[in-house]
């Protein structure tokens, strides 16, 4: 199951863990990504809190946690090739994996169809 936040993060759910990245729409708005700052593994994050930073050529933008939980893994490939976020935003360009502490938060997120309507696609 894949869901989207109104801040343009996606989360792919597998059991009680979720993989998080930014949407194709978001990367297209940001332009060339040159650096990502990812959270520390083991860190607890709350839904809506700043979890990562993505730097495009133009500006730095925050990536917010779409759900609460503990960071269990970060994408090591983004350090050497941050432009994976441009070329493969919703698969290889993922940011981090989170162990969900409150799965009911997923109900507040949009499914793909609702997100497409949200961005006017």
């Amino acid at each position, binding site marked *: 199951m894949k869901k989207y936040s109104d801040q343009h993060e996606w989360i792919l759910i597998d059991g009680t863990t979720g993989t998080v990245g930014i949407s194709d729409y978001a990367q297209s708005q940001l332009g060339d990504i*040159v*650096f990502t*700052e990812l959270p520390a593994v083991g860190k607890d994050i709350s839904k809506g809190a700043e979890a990562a930073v993505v*730097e495009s050529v*133009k500006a730095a933008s925050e990536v917010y946690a779409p759900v609460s939980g503990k960071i269990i893994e970060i994408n090591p490939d983004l350090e050497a090739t941050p432009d994976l976020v441009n070329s493969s935003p919703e698969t290889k360009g993922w940011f981090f994996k989170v162990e969900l502490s409150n799965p009911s938060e997923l109900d507040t997120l949009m499914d793909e169809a609702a997100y497409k309507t949200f961005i006017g696609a």
Partner: protein
Amino acid sequence: MITAPTLSSIPLDQLHRDLGARMVPFAGYDMPVQYPTGIIQEHRHVRQAAGLFDVSHMGAIFVPNNPAIELEKIFPTDLQELEIGHIKYSLLLNNQGGIEDDLLISRLEDGFLLVVNAGRKHHNLDFLRNALPSVDFVPLFDKAMVAFQGPKARTILSTLCTEASSMAFMTTKKTTILDYNVILSCSGYTGEDGFEFICGSDHAFHIVKTLLDHEDVKPIGLGARDSLRLEAGLCLYGHELDSKTSPIEASLAWAIGKRRRLEGKFAGAPRVLTELKDTPQRKRIGLIPESRSIPREGCSIHDAAGNPVGVVTSGGQSPVLGHPIAMGYITNNTSTKGLTVNIRDTHYPVKIAKLPFVPTQYKK
């Protein structure tokens, strides 16, 4: 009811949209910030081949009859000695020695041509008319202005205008491209060899279309224009320069003419001449962080003890160098050992870098 301010269109607006540009509001105009391939590829293309920039939002002001002595009351440049066909980088100074704008001054056969920044052109016109009421300033704000920059620009433009092949950097002439009348300058703000031309908007459309037919020419947006000028260590008004900053603080002493330093009769001269002698309180510097986090405008700079000693005025990723670069100001008595920059509440070590970050390729 409140209505949103309307944006003006530049003459080549539709062409940019047809080329897939993302248009953004800038200085009151809808301007192309990037085309579909993105800023990094556009930037590299300019460093390797040739890029076309629409800079029609900038302002050209014609000053007929060569009133050099009058203009020298404001500008600190040697304008009496400026030969026909030559260009000087100059500064519009206020009485406090602050920079109202930076600009290029060309001497044509029938007068001076001032090319000023987009966001300052109406301000400058008022400022100059107020300061020099006896001088005629004629705005040419409806003209198209195009920059054509990069190592292949000269060869390509020479096929449409043979005179371009032999022009040296910072020279200008009235000539024709494709039989259209233009004011052609060998100048630019990317660090590359290149040209800028001013002409009627219809003529610009045909010239630009013809140049874009060449396989080595690509349209370039404002995004890459900014990263190119940052790599070249060039100031941008509103960032490195403002009405409180002096030319000496900004490391632009070279823009003050030799005779002018001796005579001192220009706006703001007391401060400028004092700072030339005694060094100013702060100075512009280049910075290279040791991390990959990018110091952006507004990030504070700190000494080894953590005390704030300055601020970043421009920062970004250098597409050519592959790491972040920045410019900013620090107080002049600061030890440059152990400097850090505060990015999102974390202090990252930075080193002072020589400017430009990427060597310039001007044809002298």
